[in-house]
């Protein structure tokens, strides 16, 4: 037994030594590799940029990616002396995949923030672009404008470029046209969320087996987005903490507002009368799936496209059920609605200038943008005489070799992309106007840095996950639950978060 123990000890120590040697070895190997690749780059004299983007479509295989990258490289070699490697990542792994690659020392030069601009900046993931933007991305800066660029500025430094697209989210009700016509419901009379109840009752009366309203996604009936003029102050729409309302610059508790209480009452009424899906708070089916079924009538959601276009595009996703859409609120722009999708150069990038130059092309060069989105002409898409794009005959999004068509609103400049068949060119004009006309939060440009209240954040998020879905879907009684919910929130430290937000906001107001 004793011998065995000694042996074990020896074995362990030998392993430790081997491990250390292996560590140092792998380090040196890594360095050599780095050198080797930079040597290569010098020989060819093109900087290599890795462009990591989130895709909602299938990930194409590497041969196909190469062909698209090569087409892009033909342009970039000549224009900016850069070669690009495309790295599409499925949307649901995107954030973790990018952050793990960067931690592991892998190369990603350009990436997008999916909702967490602030986090990327406070953990030093993003390169400070302030000094480079004028020399390498001046055109982009001009297109986007100083105002919008403010949303990705922190402490006077620019850390990214927001995707240029229709920002303003307008709350709408999407409904089945045939049922509305049959029952003689005039949907244009629905002006706000509270008008919806009577419509739902009419439908329920005619079709007792139907659940007229379905949730837009897990845990929300969509009603939360209908509160007008809310600046979420950098928080997720689905778990707001401290917010600003209207022009008042005091940070308030979202769940203490009268509007929130009224909405919770409303959804409770729907739930009790069977007007909303009973397991709306837990179902993992998406609105489009639920709308494809026969026993649903409508859902509430916010989109950045005109009502007819939205209805047409969702109709296509539900297998061609004729849908209508009606606007039930006004769009409102706050910092998060713009910087939620921000393109950043990674702080570990060896070629930040080259990366920024390429990023600039994704905002300015239609050929580059459309190669990224639609792939290669006549293989992945066809274009008619009027310039509308569709899939080649007999093909669809799943069968063409390359497409990132569902990422249209996330890559570079949306307004330079070829329009898809079924949309109207006037819509683009409407959307660009909306960006200018939509009411903007007085705190536009302010971003909240949550790093000092991380502990409270994680506790508060847990409480919100626990109570909010039930309240937004009506499955719990608001009279009893809202006080309990708010109690738990303040125990978890919501007040500290609100105070921290107010302090940072006051500071920001002083400087702006």
């Amino acid at each position, binding site marked *: 037994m004793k*011998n*065995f123990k000694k*042996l074990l000890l020896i*074995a362990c120590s030998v*392993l430790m030594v*081997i*491990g250390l040697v292996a*560590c140092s070895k792998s380090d040196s190997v890594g360095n050599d590799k780095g050198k080797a690749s930079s040597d290569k780059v010098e020989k060819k004299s093109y900087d290599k940029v890795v462009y990591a983007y989130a895709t909602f479509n299938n990930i194409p295989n590497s041969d196909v990616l190469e062909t698209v990258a090569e087409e892009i490289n033909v342009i970039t070699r000549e224009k900016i002396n850069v070669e690009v490697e495309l790295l599409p990542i499925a949307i649901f792994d995107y*954030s*973790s995949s990018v*952050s793990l690659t*960067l*931690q592991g020392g892998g190369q990603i030069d350009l990436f997008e923030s999916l909702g*967490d601009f602030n*986090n990327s900046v406070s*953990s*030093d*993931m993003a390169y400070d672009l302030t000094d480079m933007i004028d020399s390498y991305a001046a055109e982009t800066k001009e297109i986007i404008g100083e105002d919008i660029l403010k949303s990705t500025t922190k402490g006077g430094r620019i850390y990214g470029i927001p995707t240029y697209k229709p920002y303003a989210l307008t709350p709408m009700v999407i409904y089945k046209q045939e049922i509305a016509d049959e029952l003689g419901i005039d949907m244009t009379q629905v002006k706000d969320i509270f008008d919806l109840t009577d419509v739902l009752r009419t439908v329920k009366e005619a079709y007792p087996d139907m*659940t007229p309203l379905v949730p837009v996604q897990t*845990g929300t009936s969509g009603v939360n987005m209908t509160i007008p003029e809310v600046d979420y102050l950098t928080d*997720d729409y689905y*778990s707001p903490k401290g917010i600003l309302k209207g022009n008042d610059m005091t940070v308030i508790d979202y769940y203490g507002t009268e509007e929130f209480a009224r909405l919770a009452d409303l959804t409770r009424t729907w739930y009790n009368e069977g007007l909303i*899906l*009973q*397991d709306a*708070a*837990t179902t*993992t089916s998406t609105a489009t799936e639920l709308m494809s079924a026969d026993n649903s009538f409508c859902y509430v959601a916010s989109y950045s496209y005109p009502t007819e276009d939205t209805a047409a595009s969702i109709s296509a996703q539900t297998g061609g059920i004729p849908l209508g859409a009606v606007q039930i609120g006004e769009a409102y722009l706050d910092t998060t609605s713009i910087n939620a999708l921000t393109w950043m150069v*990674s*702080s*570990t990038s060896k070629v930040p200038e080259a990366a920024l130059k390429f990023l600039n092309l994704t905002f300015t060069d239609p050929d580059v943008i459309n190669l990224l989105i639609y792939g290669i002409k006549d293989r992945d898409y066809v274009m008619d005489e009027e310039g509308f794009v569709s899939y080649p005959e007999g093909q669809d999004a799943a069968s063409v070799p390359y497409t990132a068509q569902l990422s249209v609103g996330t890559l570079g400049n949306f307004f330079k992309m070829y329009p898809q068949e079924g949309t109207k060119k006037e819509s683009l004009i409407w959307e660009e106007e909306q960006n200018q006309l939509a009411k903007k939060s007085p705190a536009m440009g302010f971003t909240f840095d*949550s790093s000092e209240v*991380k*502990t*409270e*954040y*994680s*506790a508060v*998020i*847990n*409480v919100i*996950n*626990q*109570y*909010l*879905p*039930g309240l937004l879907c009506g*499955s*719990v009684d608001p009279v009893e639950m809202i006080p309990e919910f708010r109690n*738990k929130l303040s*125990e*978890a*430290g919501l007040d500290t978060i609100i105070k921290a937000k107010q302090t940072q906001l006051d500071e920001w107001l002083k400087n702006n």
Partner: protein
Amino acid sequence: MKKVIKKKNRGLTKSGPLLLIALPGIIYLFINNYIPMFGVFLAFKDYSYVKGIFGSDWNGLNNFKYLFKQDAFLIIRNTLLYNFTFIILGTIFAIIVAILMCELGEKFRVKIFQSSLLLPNLLSWVVIGFIGYAFLNADTGFINNTLIKLMGSGKEVAWYTTPKYWPFILTIVYLWKNIGYSSIIYMASISGIDKSIFEAAKIDGAKKLEQIKHITIPMLKPTIIILTLMAVGRIFYSDFGLFYQVPMNSGALYKTTQTIDTYVYHGLMELQDIGMSAAAALYQSVVGFVLVITANAVVRKVDNDNALF
């Protein structure tokens, strides 16, 4: 002295080839379990992508704070109670199943039963979550729609918003999934027991139940102790799939379904803070380590032969 050295050498020559066989496993363990342990620094760092793991600023114990906020007591209670239940019930049921299997005798029947008991273990938690959903769904679920209607006794239950049923549901689901698998180890130990002991007992007039009580279970004791000790080491962890997928992550159930792993997951999905996740992992391992040492010390005191070390 000479004798001792000789003996030592003999030990090495004897175990050398065996060690060689174990080498791939040891190397794997080292690469997979020891090298990543450098990451433990992260638990005390304010991680920055530019500065890297070792260059980031020290953060003291700040990363640990959120683990002791507010519901910490409830979450620790849930984690511990569930794991205790699983260890106790899991062991009891696994032994019963193993004994029954061994008594079946005929190979063909054993194979059929064993495969059907193992099947749930091969399903992923996501699938099991949806099987549960098919039973418990408020609108169309089997229990609400068929069972309760058949029994004619009134009210449908909103399963996914009523916390009080979930300790039972989760325990049943856990047992259903895991028993087949854990009974295999016990079956192996039972078939290792010398058959002549049973024969001798039979001649002495011992009935089946007496044989089980006086021979099988005492012979299984070492296996039970080792498996339990290993389970105790993981008592601060929870099976994430069970607690996240099976209740469909329903917020209203957190009172009885939230464990340390799901709490950390919920809190950090939005923050994506590497330091805080590392802190949670360190906290769990340290508590697990302390518990194993204590449990082993207790076993050693009571029954020295069966202690793990």
